Every structure is written in C-alpha cells, then in structure tokens.
C-alpha cells in the first residue's frame, strides 16, 4: 500500500498494537527467565534440595551429555511410536467414521458402545493390552491408538452428520449418489473438523505413548522418566520432561502447519 495513504491516527493505532505485543512477549520471557534463575539460586543456596528437585544447571549438563543416557535414541523411539499411533488413529478413525456415516443402521447400533468406550479411562486397559500384544512397541502403539481412536471417530462422525442439509439437498437435486455426496460434499465440508481432531489427537497419542512406555518400561522418554524416578536421578527425569514438552510442541505445530497447507 502507498505509505502516504496511511493516516496519522492509523499509525498511532498500529504502533500501540505493536508495543502491546512486545510488552506481552517481554513479560512472558521474563517469567521463564525469572523462574529458572530463582530455581538455580534457591538450589545453590541449599533452600531447595537439588537432589530431589534437580536444578537448571544440572539439567543442562544432562542435556549436553546426550550420548551418556542414549537420550537421542529414546527421543527417536517416542517420536516414532507417537507418529505411528497418531497416523493409525487418524486413518482408522476416518475410515470407521465413514462406515458409520454410510450406514445409518450401523451408527445407531454402535452409538451406546461408542459412548461407553469413550468415557472409559483407556489406561486401565494397559495391562490387558500388554498381555495380548506383548510387552513391546506394539503394545505402546495400541495404547496410543486406544486413547485417540474413539474420540476421533466420534468427532469426525459428528462433523459428517452435521454437514449442511441444504448442500446435501442441492446435491440430491442433481441426483448425486451416496459416494458422490461423500467425496464431493461431506468430506470437503469437514476438512476443518478433521484438522481440529488431528490437533487433539496428537496430544492424546503422546499421552498414550508415554503411559505405554511407563508400563512396558523398555525404551522411550516415558521409560527414562520412570527409570530416572526409580534410581532417584531427578536430573534425568526433568530433562526428559522438558524434551517431551518440546517434542509435543513441535508435533502440534506440525499439525497446525499441515492444516494450513490443506485448507489453502
């Protein structure tokens, strides 16, 4: 736009907005720095016991010695399991939702079962899953799937069933068959439902994977956390938790970016 076209009031307004944004960001950064500094100082002064509360400098040290604890391998394993569980959950979720949308009868039959399964805390199934699938990566992926699948099915089916009736009627006036209605109206109309459910799903898959790793206890960040706790190596626990939150944030952003690409 032409620079002259911007009025003075507009400039003042824009500047105010910018200052406000910077102020918020500054305070946020200060809070993080303050928290870390306080933690470090209190630990150094011996007011909090760094043996059970760890300490930022020791976390950094653990972080630097990546190879000592095979940290990278564990991160890799957790990521792999999460992505597989997440992908399977999305794929199966959509597939089941499509089947249930297709058959009104089936969806009515399935309804109470879905509701019960949805409210069941899936972690309770952990021991059963391990016995059935075996204590390994398989069980962990099944765990992630168990946690995310039902929510995905319910959410996507709900989106499908709430597709604008007028659009469906319009398609019917051209004598569209069910397959055409599905591929040309229902699915494209629900892209945003789908992306939203992926956003929820990535978090749920991580919950599934970490709790699976707790139970199976062989590898991954979840295993490291449990192991660190058992041998009282709180530095390792804290480091793992921090890495985990970074992994979670990156994966979430990945989904957000994917959503932006798809919705363009």
């Amino acid at each position, binding site marked *: 736009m032409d620079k002259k076209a911007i009025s003075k009031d507009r400039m003042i307004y824009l500047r105010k907005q910018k200052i406000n944004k910077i102020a918020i960001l500054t305070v946020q950064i200060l809070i993080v720095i303050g928290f870390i500094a306080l933690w470090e100082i209190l630990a150094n002064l011996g007011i909090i016991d760094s043996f059970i509360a760890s300490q930022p400098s020791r976390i950094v040290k653990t972080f630097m010695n990546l190879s000592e604890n095979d940290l990278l391998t564990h991160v890799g394993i957790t990521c792999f399991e999460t992505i597989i569980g997440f992908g399977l959950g999305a794929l199966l979720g959509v597939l089941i939702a499509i089947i249930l949308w297709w058959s009104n009868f089936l969806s009515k039959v399935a309804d109470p079962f879905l509701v019960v399964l949805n409210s069941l805390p899936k972690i309770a199934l952990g021991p059963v899953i391990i016995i059935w699938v075996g204590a390994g990566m398989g069980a962990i992926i099944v765990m992630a799937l168990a946690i995310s699948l039902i929510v995905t099915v319910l959410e996507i089916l709900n989106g499908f069933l709430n597709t*604008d009736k*007028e*659009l469906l*009627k*319009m*398609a*019917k*006036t*051209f*004598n*569209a068959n069910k397959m*055409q209605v599905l591929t*040309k*109206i229902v699915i*494209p*109309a629900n*892209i945003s439902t789908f992306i939203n459910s992926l956003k929820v799903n990535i978090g749920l898959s991580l919950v599934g994977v970490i709790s699976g790793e707790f139970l199976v206890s062989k590898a991954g960040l979840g295993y490291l956390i449990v192991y660190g706790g058992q041998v009282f190596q709180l530095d390792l626990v804290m480091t793992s938790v921090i890495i985990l939150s970074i992994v979670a944030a990156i994966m979430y952003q990945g989904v957000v970016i994917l959503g932006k690409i798809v919705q363009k």
Partner: protein
Amino acid sequence: MEDILTIQKVTKTYQAKNGELEAIRDVSFSVKKGEFISIIGPSGCGKSTLLSIIAGLEEKTAGDIWIEEEPIQGISEKIGYMLQKDSLLEWRTIYDNVLFGLEIRGKKNKKSKAYVDTLLKKYHLYEFKDKLPSQLSGGMRQRVALIRTLAVKPKILLLDEAFSALDYQTRLMVTKDVYDILKNENMTTLMVTHDISEAISMADKVVVLSNRPTTVKKIYDIDFEMEKRDPLNCRKSHKFSQYFDCLWKELDVHG
C-alpha cells in the same frame, strides 16, 4: 402451445411418528412451454412439498405428473431445482461450482463446458470464474447458483423461495436479472414465493393454493400488456395493484 408439464390430482400424505399429515390433496394444473408460473399460498401449506414431488425428491401418494407427455419417475434430468440458499460449495471456485451438476451427472465434457462458458459470459460472471464464492455478493452468488442449475439444460426450472435470503434491494435486482435470463433461455419456470409482489412481477400465471390439505384455489392470468415485461417497471402499472389486491384477498388468513 402444448403443455410441457401436467400435474393431475396429485396428493401427498406424510407418515410421521405422531400420525398422518395430509399436505396436498388433488392438486391439478398444467404449464405451457416458456411460461413463468408463480405459486403462492399460506405458510406451511405444502408449496415446497409440491415442488419436491415434481423434482422427484419426494414421492407422491397419488396422482400423476407428466413432463412432455412422459410420466416422471424419481429424479428427472428434465428438472432443475433451485433452493432458497445458494448452496455454493465454499471450497470450489465459481467455475467448479457451476460445473458441479454436470460433474455429478457425468456430463462434464468439452461441449458442456463450452455451454457453461457461454452462460457465464452472457450473464457477466465469466471474469469471476476463478474467484471463491465468499468473494461474491449475495446477488451474484444466487446468479451463480442459477447458472449451475441451467448448465445441466433442464426443461423445467423450479425455484423455491430462491430470493428470500437476499436483502430487499439485491432481491429486486436479482429478480430482474433472473427473469431476463430465464426469458432469454425460454425456460419454463415454477416459482414458489411468499412475496405477492414478486409473484406478480414475474409471472404469466399465479397459482393460489389453499390451507392444508392444499388444493388449487384459483389460477390468475397476469398480463400487463407490455411489449417486453420488466419485473421492476411493471410494479408501477395500475394493473399491478389490482392484481395485488385480488391475490391479497385470495390469500386471506381464514381462507
């Protein structure tokens, strides 16, 4: 001119959980090629039901409907149906929206696309063909929806409150645009509307329906003795207010 559409003793009884509901009873009238028929009636009397039956979306309980002497069965390719909402698909460009019907019927080819191009050019939408529906005004969207319906070359067009979602000014303008398009294409049209003025301004005949169970109460011939009808200008004619008064009385809440 011969009749293109004949409706004879059409009856519709809905089956619902709380019993039967006789929506229409023994409705009969016929329509000539190129005619514009407006249908008015009290709200909830069964106007939409009647159009849905003609379109084949709804089954009739009794009676017969012929198009060009053939009884209709199910959804007929000879019928174009335009609803109140434009129902454009927001994720498709205007061009792909207009092609939707052809695509569904498996008739998207060079010839039909060329026809769509002519329609878009003729009605000043060609330059917007790569835009998304959200970038168009309500009036333009409605015209796009009309061209989507015309693209499949129906013999008869059904309009159900097609303009009632638009604001008054846009509505007057779109009414004129649509009228010109339809007369240009010599389209036979049945339009359901709540708006008596709109009904008169476009119609060759106005069919007045009664309360439920709906029957045909009266059919008015509308003629402004103008050389070329203009749905805006004819509103100024003294005949317009006469027709309006008649229809208003006919629609009397107690009738």
